[in-house]
């Protein structure tokens, strides 16, 4: 009996279900992507899929376009999100909770529903769908992921640091650039990664907001994967995307020796 108790009170025992889950749904799919990428339709090892990607100008163009859209979206989110987070984190700002709530409120519903609603909104206002609508939709969906980590770091920042900078002769502007911005970088990194990663692989938003006129890399992968004889090629595209995402998250990780921004 006591042995049973011992087994159940051990932390390692409780970790097993999670380990199993992750093996099945995280590690195995990754291996499968790798395996498919390096095999042909009959299951033989090949690198021809990669060769195809590098000579396939449409795929490369779509890829570059997706990265560009993601970079644009991240930049817009940062430009809009940083000031918003900064205002919310000000000591004399009375209603940071309300404002945070307003930014986060749209996230209470599924993003597909939200995007469908955005399409309707655009139609109602008579605005054209297309690249502009796509950027708007992406920004609308991912802005909270930028604001929240920045707000978090700014809010935790000791106000006496700003006072110290001013005391040492820094004007408001100088203390902002020399103290507040450098100290909020961990939050900025988190925000950038959290916005960039999902936008570079998005496809549903693009399809809905552009009437399928603009194809992002995510849509391309979806097309190939759902077409049986191009599954292996789709796997290669997924792998390329994965590598890009991994690189961006390294970019974020290298800078987390200070306060981490905290993800939503």
């Amino acid at each position, binding site marked *: 009996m006591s042995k049973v108790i011992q087994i159940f009170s051990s932390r390692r025992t409780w970790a097993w279900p999670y380990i199993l889950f992750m093996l099945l749904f995280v590690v195995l799919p990754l291996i499968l992507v790798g395996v498919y990428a390096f095999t042909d339709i009959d299951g033989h090892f090949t690198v021809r899929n990669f060769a195809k990607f590098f000579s396939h100008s449409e795929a490369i163009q779509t890829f570059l376009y997706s990265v560009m859209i993601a970079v644009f979206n991240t930049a817009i989110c940062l430009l809009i999100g940083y000031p918003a987070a900064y205002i919310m984190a000000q000591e004399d700002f009375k209603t940071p909770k309300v404002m945070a709530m307003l930014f986060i409120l749209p996230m209470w519903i599924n993003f597909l529903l939200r995007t469908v609603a955005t399409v309707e909104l655009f139609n109602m206002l008579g605005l054209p769908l297309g690249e502009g609508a796509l950027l708007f939709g992406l920004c609308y969906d991912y802005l909270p992921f930028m604001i929240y980590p920045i707000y978090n770091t700014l809010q935790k920042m*000791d106000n*006496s*640091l700003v*006072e*110290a*900078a*001013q*005391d*040492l*002769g*820094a*004007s*408001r502007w*100088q203390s902002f650039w*020399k*103290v507040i911005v*450098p*100290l909020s970088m961990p939050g900025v990194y988190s925000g950038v990664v959290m916005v960039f990663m999902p936008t570079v692989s998005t496809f549903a938003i693009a399809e809905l907001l552009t009437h399928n006129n603009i194809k992002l890399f995510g849509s391309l992968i979806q097309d190939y994967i759902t077409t049986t004889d191009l599954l292996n090629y789709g796997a290669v595209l997924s792998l390329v995307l994965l590598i890009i995402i991994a690189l961006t998250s390294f970019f974020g990780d290298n800078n987390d020796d*200070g306060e981490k921004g905290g993800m939503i």
Partner: protein
Amino acid sequence: MSKNPFIIEVNHVFKQFEDGKFALNDVSLQVKKGEFVTILGPSGCGKTTLLRCIAGFQVASSGDILLKGEDVTKTPPYKRPVNTVFQKYALFPHLNVFNNVAFGLKLKKEDPETIKKKVRKALKMANMTGYEERKVDTLSGGQQQRVAIARAIVNEPEVLLLDEPLSALDLKMRHDMQIELKELHEKLGITFIYVTHDQEEALTLSDRVVVMNEGKIQQIGTPTDIYNEPQNCFVADFIGESNILSGTMIKDKKVEFCGQVFDCIDTGFGENNPVDVVIRPEDIYIWKVESQKSKDRPADSKTDSQNIEDDPEDRVPKGKFTKWYGEVQSCIFKGVHYEMRVLAADNYEFLIQDYHEYLPGTEVGMLVRPEDIQIMKKEHYIYNYFEGEVLKNGKVRFIGAEWEVQPKQIEGLEPGEKVQVKVPFRSIDLQDYEEEGKLSGEVHFILYKGNHYQLTIRTDEGYDLYVNTNDVWDDGDRVGVVIPKDKILVESRKSKVESHE
């Protein structure tokens, strides 16, 4: 303007916060060039607010602040020739020690060689040479504090503001840093304004001490002045230990307390006026007496200078001093001295410090030199005075509640008439449970007056009541306030005004 001896002048500064409370209530202060001034007070007394107004982080609601004769009341902090050492150091975590110290110089765009030289010199002053490349979060608290000091003095400010700079350090470190700060002040020759709640720190470091409480300056003086001649009960109680007793000034140089008349050196308090008497615990001489004698002893035993038993070392001054007697209640060893509580006539309790141990139960004689008796004007006598209004239902409204009073008190007064209400300190009852009282409030300040406590009760509506009681309460206790109806005295304002005319 150059003849102005004051580097800082604070003139009638008020600072009111959004909730209506005054953090600074008519504060005026002048600081000379090169002075080391300490602002001392309990937490929430406004000392930090005053410092922040001088630094420019807060703007006074009214009044003005002059630096070198120039009005800086509304000048932003970065344009003031002062630098601050913050309580929690406020070092920039993203910069190393060198860049932290160089921060101000780089903003001034000084050339790199000068910056290097100045930073090195400042770090040397703060005993931090060799730490230039270290990250600030790898430093100990004391080292961080030194960097913070170096960062402030490197800009060669004319005034250095220090906001409780040592409060986060351990005791030993604090003592070392105190000595270093004192030396630094001498070396730099600039003005130091130092905020602390630690009275020992204030007394050891400063040229002058400013004691603050509740947004007001209570006393400004040299450390010895503050200690030996406190101007009111708050200062006496806050600085060091003291016996504060209610007494009566019979005439100049004669004061009565504890049932006896004592010689003192104070004059100008009038005749037969109630006063507060302060005696420091180390100023009372104490010796053992045979137990029966103390009880039979005549009230005025001025003459028997021979009667001091158990004084082998001849410690007790001989001469015509008034002596009084009591029984030791408790005795605690405090390292260098013993601290004893002695109960004397009329239930007066004295706190006494002496190098000799007298065990509880010992009958002792006590005396104090006239010059060690400090007389203070009583701030409050025995009545609380409130403004009130007579109501239609025969009650009187004051301090935010309706009170029943004896009918004769409001005889001849019209409803709606403004009146003055008097309630003796002794007559207010405090209840453990807030609900039992008509008003609830909090014990705000406690003063032990030798044989009773004088409490300041701050009601939830913000009124202060003074209550004399023998019960023991703690700071911050919630109480219910009850005033028996026969203890409320009502006076018409009209008759008062007329009688004045």
